[in-house]
């Protein structure tokens, strides 16, 4: 990669104590993202992708224990003091969540929420902040921006609210935007608009973006690189075209196969993945996917495969029997 590395996660792990025992939500993840690049993180519920995004933002629940390093722009966020961290959040590091109804304050107007952010981080005075807020709303495609400033979140539709949330996130020109399932709660036509908006803004601002989703279709056309997560670990990571064309992980293959395709004929039986996603409070020895994997061998049930590369250094996977690869992994 020729771009400078903006964010680097090194050996990040998140442990949560629960009544049923320790829950390893994130299990030693290494990831990097360069300035201006888009990383897609794909996984189902319980795979740890949300906890991972929270650990970047240092917004983990109180009981959670974070280990490893989160290096953003040269600083380790996990070890930064709260005041500097707070200044960083919102300004250089922004977030868009899944449900805009709960991520926006329902009792404050949109204008107030935008202006507050601008005043806090950019130290603009009231008038300048108002003008800038209206500009931002217009930039994210909200018609009649001036009037909208006085409206409350419940007066807008889901798509509009998400645009407002994006406007707030982008207001201070962040270097990195984390979008955690930003379109899952939206209709498919609105989803397309929102994703286009994010892509456009990212190109204009040369902003890095992490797009977290469970939908492989969403990452396919809109990311540079994809990391697939399962049971708290990154199990495959590659530049997007290579992931889809030349995947090595059986899980990735199974996930792709299980999605109904629009050009398939009706009543084609779907190759479903048997079993259920793993219980994070009961880790098993061996590969977490092995109970559901067609290709699993006794080795897979015994030992956990480590993330390694094969023919290309930027394509990593964790499997003893990778698909479309003759030999095993080279760690």
């Amino acid at each position, binding site marked *: 990669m020729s771009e400078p590395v903006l964010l680097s996660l090194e050996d990040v792990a998140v442990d949560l104590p629960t009544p049923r025992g320790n829950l390893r939500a994130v299990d030693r993840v290494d990831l990097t993202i360069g300035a201006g690049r888009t990383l897609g993180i794909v996984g189902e519920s319980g795979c740890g992708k949300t906890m991972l995004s929270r650990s970047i933002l240092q917004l983990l629940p109180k009981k959670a224990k974070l280990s490893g390093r989160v290096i953003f722009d040269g600083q380790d966020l996990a070890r930064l003091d709260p005041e500097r961290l707070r200044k960083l959040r919102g300004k250089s590091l922004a977030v868009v969540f899944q449900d805009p109804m709960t991520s926006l304050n329902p009792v404050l107007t949109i204008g107030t929420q935008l202006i507050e952010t601008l005043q806090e981080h950019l130290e603009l005075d009231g008038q300048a902040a108002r003008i800038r807020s209206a500009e931002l709303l217009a930039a994210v495609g909200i018609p009649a921006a001036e009037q909208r400033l006085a409206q409350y979140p419940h007066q807008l539709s889901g798509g509009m609210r998400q645009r407002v949330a994006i406007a707030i996130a982008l207001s201070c020109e962040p270097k990195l935007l984390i979008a955690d399932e930003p379109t899952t709660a939206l*209709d*498919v036509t609105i989803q397309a608009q929102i994703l286009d908006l994010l892509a456009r803004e990212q190109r204009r601002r040369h902003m890095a973006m992490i797009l977290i989703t469970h*939908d492989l279709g969403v990452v396919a056309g809109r990311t540079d690189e994809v990391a697939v997560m399962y049971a708290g670990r990154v199990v495959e990571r590659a530049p997007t075209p290579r992931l889809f064309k030349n995947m090595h992980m059986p899980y990735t293959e199974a996930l792709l196969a299980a999605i109904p395709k629009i050009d398939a004929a009706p*009543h084609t039986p779907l190759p479903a993945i048997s079993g259920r996603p793993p219980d994070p409070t009961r880790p098993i020895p061996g590969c977490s996917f092995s109970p559901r994997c067609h290709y699993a061998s006794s080795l897979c049930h015994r030992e956990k495969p480590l993330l390694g590369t094969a023919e290309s250094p930027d394509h990593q996977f964790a499997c003893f029997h990778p698909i479309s690869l003759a030999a095993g992994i080279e760690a």
Partner: protein
Amino acid sequence: MDAERSAGRAPLLEVQNLVVEYSVGGRTIHAVSGVSLEVERGETLGLVGESGCGKSTLGRAVLQLRRPQSGRVLFDGQDLTAMQGEALRKMRRRVQLIFQDPIASLNPRRRIGDIIAEPLVIAGVKDQKRREQLVHEVLSAVGLDPQLVAGRLPHEFSGGQCQRICIARALVLNPEFIVCDEPVSALDVSIRAQILNLLEDMKARFGLTLLFIAHDLAVVKAVSDRVAVMYLGRLCEVGPSEQLFAHPAHPYTALLIEAIPVPDPDVRPAESVAVGEPPSPMAPPSGCRFRTRCPRADQRCSEEMPELREVGPQQFAACHHPLIGAG
């Protein structure tokens, strides 16, 4: 629509000009505004549309869980809208419903065995042994071990398992018709495929007719013989699945298809043609309701509400300027 009648048998379900409205805080929401459709015995009709289009309301109205303001629903020739009380309750044994949120669909304080036996009790099956036997049969049919499952509470199960339980409950009375209201939307991707396969299996095994409501086009296409597209309370287009998706006639159908994210990195997502947001169901636009977002809209579209007309073999679209067929 007459082409279908020539098959000889009347359709199992006939919805005629259904109108469902309800008031919220003094204003009226026009959820369903004059929808007519038919479902033949043994087929799966997919009903697709985005949020606010009224598809869920339509599903509930068909079952008379929400009484329509006008229109009729004929099930096996009998008018459900005219039925009340005991007669309606008896009809309910033949028509069942599966919901979107499987965990919320189960009473958290009752055991699975009781939940599945409930329809039998209501239907008057007095013999407890017989009830147990039927419950066990249907649990096995959906892939759950009755010994392990029957005595437990819903919170002990995952979303996918709960949906299986809900399907079992819907099947225990051997109904003829099931309305599936977004049955897989709340489930993980890898579980969705399991449940869809299960539904197809159960349909074949129990000889069911399905009305499958969803917002995900690919999911709808995977299980449906025919698909109906709804927008803001009206039907836009109805037709056989393959044909509709390969050659959509209504601009909205085309828009929906184009907006689907395709898991293929070579397919560049087209800059969406979709303009703006859907209008509110409290104030639907005059004439064609899609005209505010339609690239083909003109004066006629704002004055005259289009009716469903045949634009292809068995394909009907409500549009003055359809993409295929006579203009």
